[in-house]
């Protein structure tokens, strides 16, 4: 069984939002639902100011607070690490939304809190999901963390990586190059 992870090099992102629109098309998302987003952070004073951009989406945590609080196991952790949703079981209590420290979920028209799926049907075939495959700057790299030869492991070995708010104990599966 693979153990999927995602490595993000935020320094290369130029904020074109192709990831978001490609994802919307691929997953046929409703207008008010977005699986991934960009956070913009301005730092410094003119003329030495810079803009940082951080792509965010469901972190597919190893200790997912959303799954912990889900009363019906509608949100659950798959063996390969993907945090998945069984829409049939969702009662729409939105506890997952209040529990998520990353604001990763959006409510759909059916009042079910959706989130990034990590497109397992792509990962299982060794392909990059739409957000990654369309990215002109190759900001995202999905891969199998258990496969020592995988691109993601090679790249992670070359760089120092960090996680977002690891202090919440969520153990996110998305790593960001420092």
């Amino acid at each position, binding site marked *: 069984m693979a153990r999927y992870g995602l490595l993000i090099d935020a320094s290369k992102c130029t904020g074109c939002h192709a990831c978001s629109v490609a994802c919307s098309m691929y997953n046929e998302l409703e207008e*008010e639902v977005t699986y991934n*987003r960009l*956070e*913009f*952070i*301005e*730092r410094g004073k003119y003329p030495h100011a810079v803009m940082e951009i*951080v792509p*965010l989406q469901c972190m597919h945590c190893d200790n997912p*607070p959303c*799954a*912990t*609080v*889900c*009363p*019906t*196991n*509608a949100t659950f952790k798959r063996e390969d690490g993907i945090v998945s949703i069984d829409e*049939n*079981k*969702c*009662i*729409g*209590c*939105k*506890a997952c*939304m*209040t*529990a*998520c*420290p*990353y*604001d990763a*979920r*959006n*409510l759909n*028209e*059916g*009042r*079910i*809190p959706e989130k990034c799926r990590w497109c397992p049907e792509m990962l299982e075939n060794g392909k990059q999901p739409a957000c990654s495959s369309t990215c002109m700057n190759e900001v995202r790299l999905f891969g199998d963390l258990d496969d020592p030869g995988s691109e993601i492991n090679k790249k992670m070995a070359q760089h120092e990586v960090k996680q*977002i*708010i690891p202090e*919440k*104990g*969520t153990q996110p599966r998305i790593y960001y190059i420092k």
Partner: protein
Amino acid sequence: MLKQKLWIGISALLVLIGMAGMINIFLHGEHVMGTTNYVPWGSLIGAYVFFVATSTGLTFISSLAHTFKVHKFDVLTKRMTLASIATLLMGFVMIGIELGNPLAMVYIILSPNFTAPIFWMGLLYSFYLALHVVEFYFQLKGDHKKINVISPIVLAVAVAAQSTLGAVFGMAVARGYWNDAYISIYFILLAFISGLAFVSIMMFLMSKADVISKKTKDQISQLPPVMSKMILGLLAAAVFFNVWKWIYTLSGNVPGQADAAMLMAGGALTLPYWLLEVGFVFVVPIVLLLTLKKQQGLALMLSGLSMLIGIFAMRMIMVFAGQAIPLNIIPGAESATGLREFSITWSEWATFGFGVGGTILIYILGEKLFNLNLEDDHHTESEKSGEKMTNTGYKYAR
């Protein structure tokens, strides 16, 4: 007759408007609710807490009679149980409307998640409702033996359920303002106060109703001093909780916690907090109960009304304060400046109205269908005409 029609009319109107709001929510989902992706829990969650906590509080007080053998309260037990069931059902209506997909509730049984507070809460409150109905049945039958067995269980389940409801908030790791162990205990305390507030109003209406027997009135007139002491005592405890919460929050460094507190110290929630929460829940009752000693019944009724309004606001403030501060995911992010928008829409107000109207209607219905007086009062009361019976019924309602 007129007065009864007035009560029924007002509550029916509330129920009808409420149904319009609920249908609107059913048709248009969260578009017509004050919720957003950033503030997913809206005012109906607050209303749910309000109603079920009131229900729990009523159980506490009725258990004073059965479980703790404080027989002064015997006179009120059936009515409190009825009111408790009514408010509990209305709480379920609130959460049912807030839930996106209530039909999937069956999966709470089929696919339970034992780590989820909502699972336990759902289980405990379902259990609570069932036991409550059974308890009420035996109360009506006057089967004290069975009541004495069931009543302590109902109390235990109520405490467990209410503190689990606290945990629903308390265990939200992402929300600094809620993420706190004490919230479960504070919920129990507040439920007790809610129950006392409700009973204070009930007592006043019963004491004014001309159809209530003198004996019952006499029994009720014994209660105000003890009620007053209980309210003051519990409010004092709540003040301690609050003062320490403020001190911990402002001196601590939990992300989101101090910011949320600042909403109340000098931000968007300042007015509702100080006026409705501090003023109506604490200041007004304490002042009334300490000063209006000669008209203790009136003071209790006014205090009860004040506290119920204040506690309702308090639930809203708690729900929104926990979500209004943007999560600090990426420090300095542009999307996390300012506050997350929150609001209460007409459909939601209408749904609360349904809760209030529904409580009154269920109560009146209960008074019509059942004999809620003490057994030894039975004969005198039952000899009176049915019309008068209902006449008293509506007067007991608030």
